[in-house]
């Protein structure tokens, strides 16, 4: 958005210069922007796949998608949303915000930062290209259980494996960069326990990434050698065990779901104090709760596998360990509520999304507790109840969190206020659509509708029709969001440096839009906050 100030290279043709700028950039803000646009693009692609799924499920019977194609759609939808939308979205926010929030001039390893981003478009091109291959795209669900993905996987599974390897490398490098930045480049005087919570949650997320993405890489490598090089890790015929696949996968998979939500927790912890105009309630307990969630996430993977014939002791262990996670999560929810308690609250769009996050994520947390109960889980396992559960934690959790963050920091990034009226419209339509889409899934799931099946019994027809209508509406809100973002980039009331009158933190001490290079000399910490703010209405130019 701002041209390089110190561009001393000889002038190049415009297109080449444009390409070179974005391909070669080592600036954390530009790389953050790239990540966010990649995430947004894939959001539309994976969302279109969700539309195919919901269109097919609008009525019982097979109308639009044949079973094989339906399975490809739900597999790619899951893979792209998890690895292509939520993770790069959060990394983009981290790139933009972490250096700004800790007063660092850039990420610690800028070239590595460029490399970790530019792996991703290639990884996802590989993954998406499998749709056009003979035999179709991967069709075994995003969890790619063996032997579906080993013995019975389509030939394109190998492209999927390579794609997963690439995005795994990208995530690990990105996470290393974030940790090194946080440990080494904080403003003088900022101790760990004074860091903004978004930075804290990302620090812990980055550790989770470094510890589990290699395990994912390991499991897909085992799949690859099982498929082509004669090993039998997951084949009982050769002395392996397909259930072991699930153990290793979920050893990665459960920390992964916290990777998808912890930065969202951080975002809510930034936004709620701003608009409640109070300090965050229980900062220390927030940090400890985040650490506790991360540690516990490594010992609960078995709750995905209660029906595999696990011994009673294992079921009890994983059940209690899972329910234990409700304690630190509850601490967080109570802290957010306590922060709002008797605050002078206003309800600008970021705050609306943050409150929606807290309420709807908590509903998802409750259905998670229901799923953690072993005796009940046998009924819920692999039904739409599970689908309802993880969409309630991921859509209002990760996606609302990201959207809240975008509305919150967009004025800082672009220098313009977004259209508050449209933002509020976006929120209210989205919150209705999310509930319309995902709430009925609880009921169809409890009544026994299995997930990942193209057709369903007649008694589920009404619930599915409601879900599909909600999904269509939810799809439309994304177009509105895109419009709002583009409109804000192109113009709008000028934003002041502090933007929100309750905002605290180093990122609000730099002008809006944030210049390409900030904090070249370390800032003063704690910062002196500028009183000159606007409240979503055009006030004056600085």
């Amino acid at each position: 958005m701002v041209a390089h100030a110190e561009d001393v290279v000889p002038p190049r043709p415009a297109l080449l210069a444009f390409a070179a700028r974005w391909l070669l950039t080592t600036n954390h803000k530009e790389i953050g922007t790239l990540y966010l646009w990649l995430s947004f693009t894939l959001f539309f692609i994976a969302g279109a796949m969700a539309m195919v799924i919901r269109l097919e499920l609008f009525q019982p019977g097979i109308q639009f998608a044949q079973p094989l194609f339906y399975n490809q759609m739900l597999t790619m939808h899951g893979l792209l949303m998890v690895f292509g939308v939520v993770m790069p979205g959060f990394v983009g926010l981290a790139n933009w915000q972490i250096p700004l929030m800790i007063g660092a001039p850039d990420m610690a390893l800028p070239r590595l930062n460029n490399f970790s981003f530019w792996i991703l478009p290639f990884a996802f091109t590989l993954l998406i290209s499998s749709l056009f291959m003979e035999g179709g795209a991967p069709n075994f669900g995003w969890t790619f259980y063996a032997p579906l993905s080993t013995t019975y996987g389509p030939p394109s599974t190998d492209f999927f494996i390579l794609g997963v390897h690439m995005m795994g490398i990208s995530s690990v490098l990105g996470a290393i960069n974030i940790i090194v930045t946080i440990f080494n480049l904080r403003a003088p005087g900022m101790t760990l326990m004074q860091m903004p919570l978004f930075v804290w949650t990302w620090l812990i997320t980055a550790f989770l990434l470094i510890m589990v993405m290699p395990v994912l890489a390991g499991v897909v490598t085992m799949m690859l050698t099982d498929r082509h090089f004669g090993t039998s890790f997951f084949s009982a015929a050769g002395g392996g065990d397909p259930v072991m696949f699930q153990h290793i996968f979920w050893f990665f998979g459960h920390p992964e779901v916290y990777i998808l939500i912890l930065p969202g927790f951080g975002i809510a912890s930034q936004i709620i104090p701003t608009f409640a105009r109070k300090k965050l309630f229980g900062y220390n307990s927030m940090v400890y709760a985040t650490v506790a969630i991360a540690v516990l996430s490594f010992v609960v993977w078995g709750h995905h596998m209660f029906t595999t014939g696990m011994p009673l002791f294992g079921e009890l262990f994983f059940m209690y360990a899972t329910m234990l996670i409700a304690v630190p999560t509850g601490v967080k929810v109570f802290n957010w509520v306590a922060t709002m308690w008797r605050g002078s609250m206003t309800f600008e769009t970021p705050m609306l999304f943050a409150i929606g996050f807290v309420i709807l994520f908590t509903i998802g947390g409750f259905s998670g507790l229901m799923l953690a109960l072993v005796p009940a889980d046998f009924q819920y396992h692999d039904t739409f109840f599970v689908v309802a559960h993880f969409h309630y934690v991921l859509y209002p959790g990760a996606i609302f969190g990201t959207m809240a963050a975008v509305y919150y920091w967009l004025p800082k990034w672009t220098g313009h206020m977004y259209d508050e009226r449209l933002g509020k419209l976006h929120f209210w339509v989205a919150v209705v659509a999310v509930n319309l889409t995902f709430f009925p899934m609880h009921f169809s799931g409890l009544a026994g509708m299995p997930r990942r099946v193209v057709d369903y019994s007649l008694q589920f027809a009404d619930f599915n029709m409601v879900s599909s209508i909600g999904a269509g509406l939810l799809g439309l809100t994304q177009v509105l969001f895109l419009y709002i973002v583009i409109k804000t980039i192109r113009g709008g009331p000028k934003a002041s440096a502090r933007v929100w009158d309750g905002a605290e933190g180093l990122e609000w001490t730099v002008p809006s839009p944030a210049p390409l290079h900030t904090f070249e000399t370390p800032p003063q910490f704690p910062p002196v906050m500028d009183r000159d703010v606007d409240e979503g209405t055009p006030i004056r130019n600085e």
Partner: protein
Amino acid sequence: MTETRNSQRKSVILLVSLALGMFGFAYALVPLYEVFCEVTGFNGKTSSRAADPANIPDARLASSDREVTIQFLAHVANGMPWEFRPTEHQLRVRLGEINTTHYYARNRAAQAVTGQAVPSVSPGYAAKYLHKVECFCFTQQHLEAGEEQEMPVRFYLDAELPEEVHTLSLSYTLFKVPDRVPQRVPDRVAVR
């Protein structure tokens, strides 16, 4: 500045080794999983090694008068063209005594096929009390087209088998070993 650079380098090295270590850990999970199941008998997994009858502590062999029923089951996995069944469906055995039974297999395909039997014991926690002295499941079995054979299982039950167990079942699932898997020399157990 150099101080920052050094501490950065140190963090990077530590973090990269953590990532590499976790990649190794994923592979380490495979033997750990095997060991865990074998030690605890979770999953109904029996030991894949032959128990040496010479090593059995006397206390365990000292036959109690307790007798239990052991049932034999056979399953054939998808794509395995063999007929496969136990020759006797159940035995009444005394704890600590070595017993022998046979499974019958016949290759119904027109070409040679190699198979691997995978055992499972139910109830799962009883698996570690079932010791196999000899079993066709320890090695791959190779049958020419139309060939048949009886395959022995010699086993004894530990005298420490929990009181509440009156009946055990020993089940084998026979898998076809894919042709692309390097075949070990069939280590055929001579029948009779």
